[in-house]
């Protein structure tokens, strides 16, 4: 317990002990049946080794699922679902829980028929198979991928009562892949080549223009996530990785890279993923995801059930500009703030896990978190963003989230003065 307002370790242990005995109503000579009874799993044999060739979570975790908001879209093949942030900890998103966004459903590609083409302003237009791609030097990087529309439904005010739905268009996994610049070097980029068009092989044929500076800096072509092949819904067999930049650019089912001297101004960078401002003008090429954080627990889907006493607040913070050197947490709606404890790896353009432990007196709370990044940027309030952007710009809502906790531990999505 590093923060001043936190309880001492001794106090934490004593209260824990008292609560434990009280909860089970233990008398002398009696005890918790979870201990005093012999449980079936302690007596009979469990399943053998090959029962599950691919291991699945315990059946008791069957409620931990991605979920969609059906009224958002006309059809589930051009839609989105959300990562259950309130049920996860650490920084890595399990592959099966990483949110999905498709524009024409999930392409199911046979890897033996997978091809990647490079054409345009290159010395040699080229084709690579999956085996070819594996022959380039491999790199491992943990990056967050956030959809630019994450928290987009909240521009006009609090709407969705759950961190999964307000902030769940994000995942954070370790990619194994090869550097885009290494592959492009095989084709030879002509000097006029200033932009790259990346194109997907799915029925949406999704395309985005990416400036060459970014392409040659840290973009990757990934074929593994968290050590195993990409999931079909994440672009199997190959996706583009564009660290710190909006998720829509991370083309899944990547089939083609074209080099050009100008951007293409395709649908996903004109009609969509541009930010309409109150003036009627629109910003375009708003690629970077600004610093953002959110408390994942407690949150509306994860109320405080244990009553007053030692309480853990946790959440995630991230920035498209680098690492997160600091996260602040308030429990009184921003009258006073405390530095949270960042625990686990602090990696470039990856989510960071933070904790704040305190002794809850059972009175209502107003919880917020505030991320700082290495550029000196401090996560703004939603109202500060609205002052500049109005309420209809849809994308890039990285404003501070408020959760109101009542004396029963029930949590609600609110905004405060």
């Amino acid at each position, binding site marked *: 317990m590093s923060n001043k307002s936190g309880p001492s370790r001794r106090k934490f242990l004593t209260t824990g002990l008292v609560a434990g005995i009280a909860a089970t109503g233990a008398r002398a000579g009696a005890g918790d049946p979870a201990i005093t009874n012999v449980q079936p799993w302690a007596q009979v044999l469990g399943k053998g080794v090959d029962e599950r060739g691919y291991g699945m979570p315990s059946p008791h975790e069957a409620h931990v699922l991605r979920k969609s*908001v059906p*009224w958002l*879209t006309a059809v589930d093949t051009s839609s989105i679902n959300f990562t259950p942030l309130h049920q996860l900890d650490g920084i890595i998103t399990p592959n099966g829980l990483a949110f999905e966004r498709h*524009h*024409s459903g999930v392409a199911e590609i046979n890897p033996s028929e997978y091809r990647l*083409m*490079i*054409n345009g302003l290159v010395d*040699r*237009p*080229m*084709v*690579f*198979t999956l085996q070819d791609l594996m022959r380039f030097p491999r790199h491992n990087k943990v990056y967050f991928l956030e959809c630019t529309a994450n928290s987009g439904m909240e521009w006009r005010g*609090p*709407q969705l*009562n*759950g961190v999964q*739905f307000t902030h769940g268009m994000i995942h954070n996994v370790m990619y194994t892949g090869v550097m885009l610049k290494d592959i492009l070097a*095989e084709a030879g980029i002509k000097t006029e080549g200033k932009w790259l*068009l990346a*194109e997907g092989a799915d029925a*949406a*044929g999704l*395309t985005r223009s990416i400036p060459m500076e970014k392409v040659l800096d840290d973009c990757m072509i990934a074929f593994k996530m968290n050590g195993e092949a990409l999931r079909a819904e994440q672009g199997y067999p190959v996706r583009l990785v564009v660290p710190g930049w909006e998720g829509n650019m991370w083309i899944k089912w990547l089939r*083609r890279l074209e080099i050009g001297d*100008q951007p*293409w*101004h*395709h*649908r996903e960078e*004109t*009609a969509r993923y541009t930010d*309409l401002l*109150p003036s*009627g*003008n*629109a*910003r375009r*090429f708003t*690629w970077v995801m600004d610093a953002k954080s959110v408390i994942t627990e407690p949150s*509306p889907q994860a109320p405080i059930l244990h009553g007053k006493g030692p309480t853990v607040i946790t959440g995630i913070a991230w920035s498209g500009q680098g690492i997160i050197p600091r996260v*602040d947490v308030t429990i*009184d709606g*921003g*009258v*006073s*703030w405390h530095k949270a404890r960042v625990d686990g790896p602090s990696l470039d353009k990856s989510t960071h896990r933070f904790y704040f432990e305190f002794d809850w007196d059972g009175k209502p709370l*107003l919880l917020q978190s505030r991320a*700082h990044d290495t*550029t000196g*940027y*401090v996560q*703004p309030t939603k109202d*500060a963003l609205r002052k*500049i952007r109005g309420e*209809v710009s849809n994308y890039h809502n990285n404003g501070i989230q408020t959760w109101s906790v009542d004396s029963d531990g029930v949590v*609600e999505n*609110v905004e405060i*003065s």
Partner: protein
Amino acid sequence: MSKFLNATLIITLLAVPVFAGGIGRLATPDEVIAWDIDIRPDGLGLPEGSGTVADGETIFDAQCAVCHGDFGEGVDRWPALAGGFDTLTSDRPLKTVGSFWPYLSTVWDYINRAMPFGNAQSLSADEVYALTAYIMYLNEIVDDEDFELSKANFRDLPLGNEANFYPDDRPLTEYPLFTEACMIDCKSSVEISKYASGKDVTPE
């Protein structure tokens, strides 16, 4: 076994040029033509072809109107393709080809690669020209049913909203404002101003 290997080798050699340099092989011109379907605002990539508003209406009614509506107004939650004029500064902007899109090439490119939804890349170049012409007509960019869009006249027909787009300016207009982090006595009182409850929009 060796017969199989030989046969594979011969097929591979016949079909594709090798690249002596390193990893991968050269793409054939036909392969590039098959996949390089993108169109740019300057018309780069447009194939030969043409289509009229009237042709486009016939195709649209048969293949598009079920989702996008007879007049491009959008059925239920399917996207609208027309209208929304003068709504960009309102609190319910309707962003369509006519009210918001900066480039006509984007319409051609998108229809050609992604529509009709669920049967992508099934339209001929002439059909895509005709549909693009019809969407222009629905947005009052052209008013003659005999108007014909083609590779030749494509670049003379800009959409209206291009000048209203500008590059990301957050580093100038936002980042300098967002650097303060008050830690104590930051405000004298706090009121809850807005609630999500009662909206009843959150799934179970």
